C-alpha cells in the first residue's frame, strides 16, 4: 500500500440556489477527502448535486442564483500549504483554476469555443499559468496532443472544433485540462455523450495521464458501470447528500444504502435475460423525507425477474411462427455530399447501404451501432421520414416506398416513432395533453374532443403519469417524464409498430430502467412490434429478441440477441462488446489491480 497524501478536503459543503420556490440546497452538508493519485467517482441521478459539488470546488457556481453557503474546501499544495478555496478572493481563485484544479465537461461538442483553433485554446491555458513564450507553448501543446493520442497533432493544432469528431474534441479538452499538470482533475460526465468504444479509450487515457502527472481525479457520472472501470472510491449522492461512500469493490460487493442497491440493479445486465429491470423504487420509498428500505438484496431483486432459458426458447419459437410484419430488402439511403457547380451530385454519403432483414409480428428487433453507423437513418427511412435511394420496405405486404400520400397517412397511424431527445421533441408552447391529442385530431380518430381527452388521460395513466398533469407544459417535467409523454403521444393512434430511436439514451440509468420497463409492459399489453435503436448494446440486448449490428451503413451481424452477445462472430461486434463497462466484480478487482501496478 502506497502512502496516501491528502490533496483536497471538502468539509460540510452547502451550496444553495435561489429559485421561485425559495432557497434550494443543491449540495447539502457534503464532506469527503481526496488523496493524491486516487480517482473517486461521484455517482447519482441528474439533480442529485454531483455536478454542483464539482462546480463548487472550482467556484464556478453561477452567481446569482447560486452561492456556496457554508463549508470548507481545503486544497493542499505541493509545498504543503493548506488553502481554503471558499475563502480566497476571485483573483486568487483564477490562479488555481486551470492550474491546480482543472475540469473536463460533459459536452465536448459545445465546450470548446467555436471561433478559436484547438491549438489556440490549449495554448491560452499554458500561457496563462506558465512563464513560457508563444513558441514554447505551441511546442508544449503539440506534445500534449501527442500524449492524448490525437491523430495528426499538427493538423489539430490549427483545426477549429467543428472539424473534429466528438471523441477528438474530448481529447483536446483533456489536453487543455492536463496542460498545467493540475493536482485535481474534475471530469463531469466526460464520456456520456460518446460511443462506448471511444469511452473506453478516453477512460484509459485519463487513467494513464493521472498516473503520469501524479494528480487525483474526481469522476462524475450517473452510470455505475463507468465508475467500476475507473474509480478507486465511490461517493453515492442522492438529493444533495452523500448517502454512501466507500471503496469501489465494497460498494459493488455489499452496497449498504437502498439507493445504491437500486442503482446497481437497474443497469441492464449483459449475462442474464430479465423480464423487467429492478428500479430504485423497488428498493426504497420516501415518506416525509425519510428513506424506507423495501428490499435488501440486489441478487434477490434480480432473481425475481429473471427469464429462464426455456422461456426464451419458447418465445423465440413462437415468434417465428408469426407473420412477417416488416421486410427490408436491399434498402439504401444515400445523401449527396458533394455537388458540382450546376448542382449535380458528384459524391454520396452512404448512410444506409444495402440492408436486408425481416421483423416478425410482436418481436423486438434491436439495431445497434456507433454514432454515424446509419441506424437512425434506417429508422427514419422505414417511416419515409428520410428518402430511400433503393430497395423495398414491405409492411404487411405493401411496399411503403410506393404508397401515395393518402395511403401513407393511414400507415402513419400504424407506425410511430419515439425520438431520442425528450427536450426538443415536444413543442414547448403546447400542453402535454394537447401534444398527445394532436395526432388523434390530425387523423380524426374518436368522435369528439371530449372523447379524445378521455383517451388522452387514459394514456397518461398508462405511462404512469397523473391525469391532472394534462394541462401542464413540457418544461415542468423531468427528462424521464417527458419521454413518457412522448411514448403516450406515439400510443395515441393505437399503432402496431413502434420505432424507438435512442429513446432512453438521454436519460439517467435509473430513469432509463423505468422507461424501459414501461416499454416492455406496453409491448405485452398491446402486442407491439418494436424496432429498438440504440448505441448501447446492453440496453438493446435487454430489450430485443433479435438484433442487428450496424457499421458504416452495412449490417455486420444479425441474430438472437443473447447469441450475438455470447458468441460474437464478427470482429466489429467483438470490439463493441469488449468496450462495454460490465461492472462485474472480477473486472473491478482486475482494473483496480492494474491501476495500482
Amino acid at each position: 500500500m502506497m502512502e496516501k497524501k491528502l490533496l483536497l478536503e471538502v468539509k460540510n459543503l452547502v451550496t444553495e440556489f435561489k429559485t421561485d420556490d425559495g432557497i434550494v440546497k443543491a449540495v447539502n452538508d457534503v464532506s469527503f477527502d481526496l488523496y493524491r493519485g486516487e480517482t473517486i467517482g461521484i455517482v447519482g441521478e441528474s439533480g442529485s448535486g454531483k455536478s454542483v459539488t464539482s462546480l463548487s470546488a472550482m467556484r464556478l457556481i453561477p452567481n446569482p442564483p447560486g452561492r456556496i453557503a457554508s463549508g470548507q474546501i481545503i486544497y493542499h499544495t505541493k509545498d504543503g500549504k493548506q488553502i481554503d478555496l471558499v475563502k480566497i478572493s476571485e483573483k486568487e481563485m483564477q490562479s488555481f483554476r486551470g492550474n491546480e484544479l482543472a475540469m473536463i465537461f460533459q459536452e465536448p461538442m459545445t465546450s470548446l469555443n467555436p471561433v478559436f483553433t484547438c491549438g489556440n485554446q490549449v495554448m491560452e491555458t499554458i500561457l496563462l499559468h506558465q512563464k513560457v513564450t508563444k513558441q514554447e507553448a505551441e511546442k508544449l501543446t503539440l506534445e500534449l496532443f501527442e500524449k492524448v493520442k490525437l491523430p495528426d497533432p499538427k493538423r489539430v493544432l490549427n483545426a477549429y472544433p467543428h472539424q473534429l469528431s466528438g471523441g477528438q474534441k474530448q481529447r483536446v479538452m483533456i489536453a487543455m485540462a492536463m496542460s498545467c499538470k493540475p493536482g485535481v482533475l474534475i471530469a463531469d460526465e466526460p464520456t456520456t455523450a460518446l460511443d462506448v468504444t471511444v469511452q473506453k479509450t478516453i477512460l484509459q487515457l485519463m487513467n494513464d495521464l493521472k498516473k503520469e502527472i501524479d494528480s487525483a481525479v474526481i469522476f462524475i457520472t450517473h452510470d455505475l458501470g463507468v465508475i467500476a472501470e475507473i474509480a478507486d472510491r465511490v461517493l453515492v449522492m442522492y438529493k444533495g447528500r452523500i448517502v454512501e461512500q466507500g471503496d469501489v469493490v465494497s460498494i459493488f460487493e455489499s452496497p449498504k444504502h437502498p439507493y445504491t442497491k437500486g442503482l446497481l440493479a437497474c443497469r441492464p445486465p449483459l449475462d442474464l435475460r430479465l423480464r423487467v429491470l429492478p428500479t430504485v423504487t423497488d428498493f426504497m420509498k420516501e415518506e416525509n423525507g425519510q428513506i424506507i428500505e423495501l428490499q435488501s438484496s440486489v441478487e434477490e431483486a434480480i432473481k425475481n425477474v429473471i427469464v429462464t432459458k426455456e422461456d426464451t426458447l419458447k418465445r423465440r419459437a413462437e415468434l417465428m411462427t408469426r407473420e412477417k410484419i416488416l421486410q427490408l430488402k436491399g434498402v439504401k439511403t444515400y445523401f449527396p455530399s458533394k455537388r458540382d457547380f450546376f448542382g449535380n451530385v458528384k459524391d454520396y454519403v452512404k448512410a444506409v447501404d444495402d440492408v436486408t432483414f425481416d421483423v416478425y409480428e410482436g418481436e423486438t428487433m434491436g439495431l445497434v451501432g456507433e454514432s454515424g453507423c446509419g441506424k437512425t437513418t434506417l429508422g427514419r427511412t422505414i417511416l419515409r421520414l428520410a428518402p430511400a435511394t433503393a430497395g423495398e420496405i414491405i409492411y404487411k405486404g405493401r411496399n411503403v416506398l410506393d404508397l401515395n400520400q393518402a395511403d401513407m397517412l393511414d400507415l402513419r397511424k400504424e407506425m410511430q416513432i419515439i425520438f431520442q431527445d425528450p427536450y426538443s421533441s415536444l413543442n414547448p408552447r403546447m400542453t402535454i395533453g394537447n401534444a398527445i391529442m394532436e395526432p388523434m385530431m390530425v387523423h380524426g380518430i374518436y368522435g369528439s374532443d371530449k372523447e379524445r381527452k378521455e383517451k388522452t388521460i387514459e394514456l397518461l395513466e398508462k405511462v404512469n403519469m397523473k391525469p391532472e398533469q394534462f394541462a401542464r407544459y413540457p418544461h415542468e417535467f423531468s427528462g424521464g417524464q417527458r419521454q413518457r409523454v412522448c411514448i403516450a403521444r406515439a400510443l395515441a393512434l393505437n399503432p402496431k409498430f413502434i420505432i424507438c430511436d435512442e429513446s432512453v439514451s438521454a436519460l439517467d440509468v435509473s430513469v432509463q430502467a423505468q422507461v424501459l420497463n414501461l416499454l416492455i409492459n406496453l409491448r405485452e399489453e398491446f402486442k407491439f412490434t418494436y424496432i429498438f435503436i440504440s448505441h448501447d448494446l446492453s440496453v438493446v440486448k435487454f430489450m430485443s429478441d433479435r438484433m442487428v449490428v450496424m457499421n458504416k451503413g452495412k449490417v455486420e451481424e444479425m441474430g438472437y440477441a443473447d447469441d450475438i452477445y455470447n458468441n460474437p462472430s464478427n470482429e466489429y461486434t467483438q470490439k463493441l462488446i469488449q468496450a462495454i463497462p460490465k461492472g462485474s466484480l472480477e473486472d473491478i478487482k482486475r482494473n483496480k489491480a492494474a491501476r495500482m501496478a
Partner: protein
Amino acid sequence: MPPHQIACIKSSKSPIEALERMIANYGNWPEIQNYYVQIAALQYSTYDVQQDSTTYESGRTLKENIASLFTKYKDEEIKQGFAEMKAAIAQSPNFKGVGVEMAKLETSYKAVQDNATPSKNYIPKLYWYGMHNQFHRWMFGDKKWFSSEEEPGKGSGFIRADFGFSYTDKRPVWSKMKDALPWTLLLNAISLFLAYLFSIPLGVWSARRKGTIADRITTFVLFLMNSLPSFWIATMLITFLTTSEYGMNFFPTFGLGDIDDEMTWFEIAMERGYHLILPVFCLTYGSLAYLSRQMRGGLLTVLRQDYIRTARAKGLDEGRVVWRHAFRNSLIPIITIFASIFPAAIAGSFIAESIFSIPGMGKLSLDALFSRDYPVVFTVMMLSAILTMVGNLFADIMYAVVDPRISFNK
C-alpha cells in the same frame, strides 16, 4: 329661347361626362373616337359655307346643334339633334358640303351602335410595350451601345452611369448628387462611428451586470431612446436649444454654416462641427440604443454557452472571458444590423436632413419626391437598392471572417 335650346340645356352635361357615358354604353373606343372626329369634321365644314340670307337662321341652328353633340350621350337626344341638323341643311343649297359630312357622321354613329361591345369595359386589357417604356430608358438608355456617335436628346441610362437630367432645374442628376452626397456621408459616417463606438461597450457593460439596478436603469433609458421618434426630438431640440426664446441659444438652428475663403481648415472644421452636433445626435441616439440592446442580448446568449464555462475553468479573468471568448461569438447580430444600416448611410435620412436643412441626399430625394422629379427619385432608389445588396454581401463575408464554421466553399 327656342324650345330645342331648352332641351339642350336640360340634358347638358360636361363633355367629359358625356364621353364617359358613351364609353360606358357602347364600350367600343375606336368607333366612338371616329364619331367624335366626325363631329369635329362636321363643325369644320360649316366654316366653308357661303353666307347668304338662306343660311343665316339655319346656320346658327346647325352650329348650336353640332356644338351640343359633344355633351350628348342619350340616343334619342342625338337622333333628335341629327333630325334638326338635317332639317337645317335642307334649308339652303349652300349646305351641300355640310350634308356630305352629316351623312358620314350618321354612318359613324350607326357604327358606334352596331359595334357596341359594352362588356369590353369590364375586361382588363394588357399592353406590352416591350422596351419602349420610361423605366427601361432610365435603366438602360436609348443610345446605341459601343458607339461614340453623338445622339442628341438620348441618354445612355443608369447602368452606363448616365443618371439623366432633373425635371425641375434641368441639371444632370449626377451633379446634383455630387453636391448632396458629401454631407450625407459626413453626417452618417460620424453617426455610425459614434453609434458603434458607444453601443458595443455599453451592451457588454450591461450584459455583465445583468439584473443589477445599473442594468435595469440602462435598459429603461435605452428602451426609451429607442422608442422616441427622431422628428419629435429634432423639433424639440430646435425649439429649445437653438433660439433665445427659452434662454438656451446654444446651437445654430439649421444649415451648415458660412464658409469664406479666408478661414483656416480648423475654423472650417469648427464651424461645420458646431452645426453638425444636433443632426448627428438625432441620427445617432436611436441606432445607439438599438445596437446596444442587440449587443447585450447577443452577449447574454453567448455567456450561457458551455465554452464560456470552459474559459472560466481555465482560470481566465472575467474581462478576458467576455472580450476574448464571448465577444466575437456575439457579433453576428451586430453585423446583420450593419448590412441594413449601410444603404441608409448613402441614401440619407429624410427627417434629420430636412428638419435641420442639410442639403444631403435625404433632403434631395424628399424634394425630388414632392416635385415629382422622377429621374432623381429613380436614381436614388436604384443606388440604395444596389447598396442594400453590397451591405448584405459585406455582412456575408464578415460572417465567415467572424465564425470559422461558416464557409462559402460548399
